[in-house]
């Protein structure tokens, strides 16, 4: 075929990104473009050409469209070039979002198989991973999207989310390799996402909905800021303190180090160091921030009664400005199967409520602002808790004539209400 004769474009600007200690994506792109034996070589030559053109003109040249696979409504990000005349071989450069395992674990074997598939049907360019947690196979013609997906699917992998739908999720490594982990992130991640694959594969919501799973308050998946539903591990009983290890730590680091880096850094000042170098914890006041445990990883540990805190509404900038998630459930235990079921049901109720009540292109965080936290809680059937606020209202601008009934309700809930 004539394509093989295609010349490498001149890329004086991109070439400047081949020097320096950090691995260069440009070098990678060139490697692909020079893979003359491979079907994607011409595509990647033109891709380099278009990218160089972008660097020259400081403008992007992709536009969207509609491309998908049989049976699914989303998961492919279609890209058509606006400068296809100049760069015909990369006129179509779609991305397939494929969901990895929870925790992004691979065998070299499965990774190699993915490479083989992507060499056959795609560009040979793979992003590990997208910010939402997908494997992004980037650079596919419209014609090859279906066969490429079929191959990945046969390999045991499924399409990720895109558009106004449930999105691909991320969980931290947690249980697999982290002593701080307060719940089985992989189990919950798979339980939730795999329960709602229809919501994920067939966009039918007002806007995107994301889950993220972090095993503790360190929030290694950025769940609070970057997901609608943040599932954060925590514990309800007392933190575990190994006083021998505390003493050892103090002996090793010195008292003043411990005071300056642990005691005085507790956000609620609930730590004190005894004269005998033992640590006292005011557990009622501990807000499970993880700091002291982070510093004294050998001596301190979350308690035994573990579960999760749920926050709803995190998102980025469109269109009200960034929003953080806020607490909708201070603690849900995760011991029995019923506990896991409850979390699944609650997730369903939340997504249903979102689907029914959010305006078009409105995220959960914006919805909460518009309808108020109370209406949300009532809508999804979660009990009220003072932990949901930093402080009660400072203004009298509310109609309170339902006060007595409300007090009765809350008291009743307290004596016997779940959560």
């Amino acid at each position, binding site marked *: 075929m004539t394509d093989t004769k295609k010349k490498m474009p001149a890329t004086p600007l991109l070439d400047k990104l081949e020097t320096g200690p950090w691995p260069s994506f440009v070098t990678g792109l060139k490697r692909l473009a020079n893979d003359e034996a491979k079907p994607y070589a011409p595509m990647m030559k033109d891709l380099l050409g278009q990218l160089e053109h972008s660097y020259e003109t400081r403008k992007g040249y992709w536009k969207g469209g509609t491309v998908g696979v049989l049976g699914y409504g989303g998961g492919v990000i279609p890209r058509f070039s606006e400068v296809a005349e100049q760069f015909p071989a990369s006129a179509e450069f779609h991305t397939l979002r494929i969901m990895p395992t929870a925790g992004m674990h691979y065998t070299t074997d499965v990774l190699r198989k993915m490479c083989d598939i992507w060499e056959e049907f795609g560009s040979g360019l793979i992003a590990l991973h997208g910010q939402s947690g997908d494997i992004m196979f980037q650079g596919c013609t419209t014609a090859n999207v279906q066969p490429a997906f079929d191959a990945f699917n046969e390999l045991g992998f499924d399409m990720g989310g895109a558009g106004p739908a449930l999105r691909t999720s991320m969980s931290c490594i947690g249980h697999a390799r982290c002593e701080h982990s307060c719940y089985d992130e992989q189990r919950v991640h798979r339980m939730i996402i795999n329960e709602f694959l229809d919501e994920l594969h067939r966009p039918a919501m007002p806007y995107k909905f994301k889950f993220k799973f972090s095993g503790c308050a360190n929030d290694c998946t950025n769940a609070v800021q970057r997901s609608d539903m943040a599932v954060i591990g925590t514990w309800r009983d007392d933190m575990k303190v190994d006083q021998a290890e505390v003493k050892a730590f103090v002996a090793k680091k010195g008292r003043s180090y411990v005071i300056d880096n642990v005691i005085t850094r507790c956000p609620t000042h609930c730590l004190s160091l005894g004269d005998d170098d033992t640590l006292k914890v005011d557990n009622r006041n501990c*807000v499970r921030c993880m700091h002291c445990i982070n510093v004294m990883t050998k001596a301190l540990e979350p308690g035994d009664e573990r579960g999760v805190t749920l926050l709803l509404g995190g998102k980025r900038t469109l269109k009200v400005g960034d929003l953080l998630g806020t607490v909708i459930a201070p603690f849900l235990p995760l011991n029995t199967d019923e506990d896991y079921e409850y979390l699944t049901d609650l997730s369903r109720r939340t997504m249903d409520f979102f689907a029914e009540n959010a305006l078009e292109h409105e995220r959960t965080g914006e919805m909460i602002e518009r309808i108020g936290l109370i209406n949300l809680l009532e809508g999804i059937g979660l009990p009220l808790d003072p932990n949901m606020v930093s402080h009660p209202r400072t203004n*009298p601008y509310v109609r309170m004539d339902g006060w007595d009934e409300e007090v009765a309700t809350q008291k009743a809930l307290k004596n016997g209400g779940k959560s």
Partner: protein
Amino acid sequence: MSARKPVECGVPDAVPYMHPLLTKNYGNWKWHERPRPGVLHHVAKNGDEVWTVRAGTQRQLDVGSVRKLCDIGDRFADGFIRFTVRSNVEYMVAKESQVAPLCKALTDAGFPVGGTGNSISMISHTQGWLHCDIPATDASGVVKALMDELHEEFVNERLPNKLRISSSCCEINCGGQADIAINMQHTKPPRINHDLVGNVCERPTVIARCPVAAIRPAMVNGKPSLEVDERKCMCCGACFAPCPPMMINDPEHSKIAIWVGGKHSNARSKPAFHKLAVANIPNNPPRWPEVAEIVKRIIHAYKDDAHDWERLGEWIDRIGWPRFFEATDLTFTKYHVDNWRGARASLNASSHVRF
């Protein structure tokens, strides 16, 4: 009537009215201490000393009481008197030996000595039924009833820090922010006297005054009047001042709410607004016992648990709101969750949770 033009003299020079020791050492004080509740001992850079004795008054004073205070000032304090921003009276004396007799004279005359340091001072006082045109409760009566109950904390200094109380007889809150604020809270929309609206009210002004735009012009049995969208109205009473026929005050449904954690000083933490603790307390003259009971409960919880120098709100910030509601046996309700502008800022946007 005299056709006299006013002498526009403004704020008078204080010097002729100030105790000579204060004038002499004006701007030159060095330090102070509190030898006993109600007494301040200030020392000037040049070594001059002045003792101040502070006593509580009813603020709404009859000339008889004022003259009584003057008599005491003449007998013990060289004929000088001042009042604090909280309506307490203060006498300055040059010798420590004058302190005890002065305290005795005040106490005998019925003016409790105290209000200094880490005590409860006089409640910041408004007008109520005695004089205001929009109050749903009294002010002087509430203050008197409560100060009777809190008298022990006025004459002693045994709290973690100052505790300031205010009371306001409508939601406007002339009494201001405070560690504990006792404010009127209406719970039903205004009933409208349609016969009067037309003549008494500037309708556009009233409509503009509503924070939630719940008021619409309307014709009621032929007369120009106003109507309220009851789903929007949150019963603030803002429409009542410009339009008395919008009757917000109700003997039954105008309730009392108690707010906690307000702070004016910049000491340690920044100034803070008070936050809702409990509402729907009956407006129960002449002594408002339900209010006193809850206020004392809050004060005791604070007294038992707070660290020295912690103001009420700073104490709550440390122990957290869940524990405040436990310690005071009050109930957290949906009404505590803000839904006014900027409400989101008050939500817990973190996994920081107390169990």
